[in-house]
């Protein structure tokens, strides 16, 4: 009887309604995966949150690596991150991950495709609202990020928007100076994206 009561209690707790924060899924995963990894044969979707994977301690470490605090109503430890492991046969050939970032006029969604070493293969905005969005959405802007990894982003301060002189990050040009806020939001989103990939997918390969 004691066990029955315990089981009933656990089941009633498990079935409690949950309201989770919103993540950043790919708009069309089948299409997007094939476009970003043409030689892929499949993908696996992982859902992770900082709260579940390491709680406050992990949140602090991510913030420290980012060089900035998580802010506002929606940048919290319970945001579910949707990570895509890309397969060719049985082998993982890369990862895709998108993050939401507060922009000047709305949510900015920055999606990165990484190789298994954590180098950026592709950078693009899945969502961006700005009068000058066209310039930031241009493929040439995204191309500037190809080949960069978290080590390069460590040269970039997301709070001041300054990169170490002579670094690869310093070479990234903003094609829309009037959309500086969204340009910086994109760089912060990309750095945060890489940190989360390092934490959850690459086994903290880039952790100093």
């Amino acid at each position, binding site marked *: 009887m004691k066990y029955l009561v315990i089981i009933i209690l656990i*089941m009633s707790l498990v*079935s*409690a309604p949950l309201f989770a924060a*919103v993540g950043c899924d790919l*708009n069309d995963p089948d299409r997007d995966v094939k476009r970003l990894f043409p030689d892929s044969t499949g993908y696996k979707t992982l859902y992770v949150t900082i709260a579940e994977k390491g709680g406050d301690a992990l949140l602090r470490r991510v913030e420290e690596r980012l060089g900035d605090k998580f802010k506002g109503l*929606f940048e919290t430890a319970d945001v579910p991150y949707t990570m895509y492991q890309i397969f060719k046969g049985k082998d993982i050939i890369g990862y895709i991950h998108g993050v939401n970032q507060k922009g000047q*006029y709305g949510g900015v969604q920055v999606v990165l495709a990484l190789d298994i070493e954590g180098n950026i293969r592709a950078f693009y905005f899945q*969502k961006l*609202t700005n*009068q000058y969005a066209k310039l930031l959405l241009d493929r040439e802007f995204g191309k500037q990020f190809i080949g960069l990894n978290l080590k390069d982003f460590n040269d970039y301060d997301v709070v001041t928007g300054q990169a170490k002189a002579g670094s690869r990050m310093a070479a990234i040009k903003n094609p829309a100076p009037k959309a500086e806020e969204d340009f910086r939001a994109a760089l912060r989103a990309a750095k945060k994206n890489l940190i989360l990939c390092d934490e959850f997918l690459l086994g903290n390969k880039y952790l100093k």
Partner: protein
Amino acid sequence: MAKKISIYQIAYKNLLRKKTRSALTILGIGLSAWVLISLLGFNRGYESALNKDIDNMGFQVLVTAKGCPYEAATLMLKGGTGLRYMKESILADILKHKEVQQVTPQLMAAIFDPNRGESGGINAYLGIDPATFPAMKSYLKFKQGAWFTDPNAFEAVVGYEAAELEQREVGDKLLIPEKNVELKVVGILARSGTADDGTIFVPLRAVQKIFDKEGQITAAGIKVDKNANMTELENKLYDLPDVQVVSMAQVKTTIMSLVSTAKVMVFSIALIAILIAMLGVVNTILMSVLERFQEIGIIKSMGAMPWDVFRMIWTETIILCLLGGAIGIGFSFALSKITDILIRRLLPYTPTGSLIAINAQLGLITLAVVLGIGLVSGVYPAWRAARVRPLESIRSEGD
């Protein structure tokens, strides 16, 4: 001095002699009681959740221009096209009807944002009247901020999910693409579980100005007097030129008729479950009586009257039913959320509130029903036991 034992103790001890059989019978009764109380709870919960959903809409009747999509989701599906407009003066015509308590104008505006994502997307804004809309939707609570500071202000109140997607907070800006108009976010709504969670609200006058639709609206929400005849009002509203009337009363009737079909089926299943449990009780007690044929004979030869024996057997039945009923009721309280989830999966439409409304009153009703069934089920075995002839039963031992 010999210890006096009550009839209840004898009945209880008798049940303990065949533990597995008694436990299985109790479980059977428990499951029937669970089904019964869950169904009674569903009967109450579904309708009240549906009523709450309809009340949460703030208005029971929506008048739109003929062919106009009246909710954002439809508008999105249509790619932001298909909006039709009515003159704002229609509000005065609507207010003339005595059944109308309040009316609130709305202007839906949608615009294509070519830079949203890879292939663009639709942004929709709902222009509302700050004087009437918030009062009608009093259930809307704020996570941050408040309603607009001015009826003409270029401000926005954002539903929780829309705010989460747009990462907006009070003080942030929203941009209306193509128009290049900035809106200041003054409020973020808390989750309401309704379509309002995904809506961006802007003062009606501001939307009219931004989208060049002065004097025009796409819909009028009507709060109807509680005692009014809704059908009569609908017919009157159809006399207005080129409008369509969307009544929540119609929607409710349709949903309730769909659900009542399901209810009849499920109640039939419950009835069968109760009958099976009843037969189980009769079987268990009758077997117990037949097995104790000689024992009952001895009890009677020692002076027990037929009524004493009847009471003893009847008490066994009542104990089984009370325990089974209590377990079933306990299950229903503990697992109501799971039952809720299961029902949601089965039904084509379910309102947002709790579908299973179980309370102590329903628990007592169920217990009374189960006890009633037990009393009826116990009559025949108890009567058989009461009729046992002492000498005949004792003699049968050697047979």
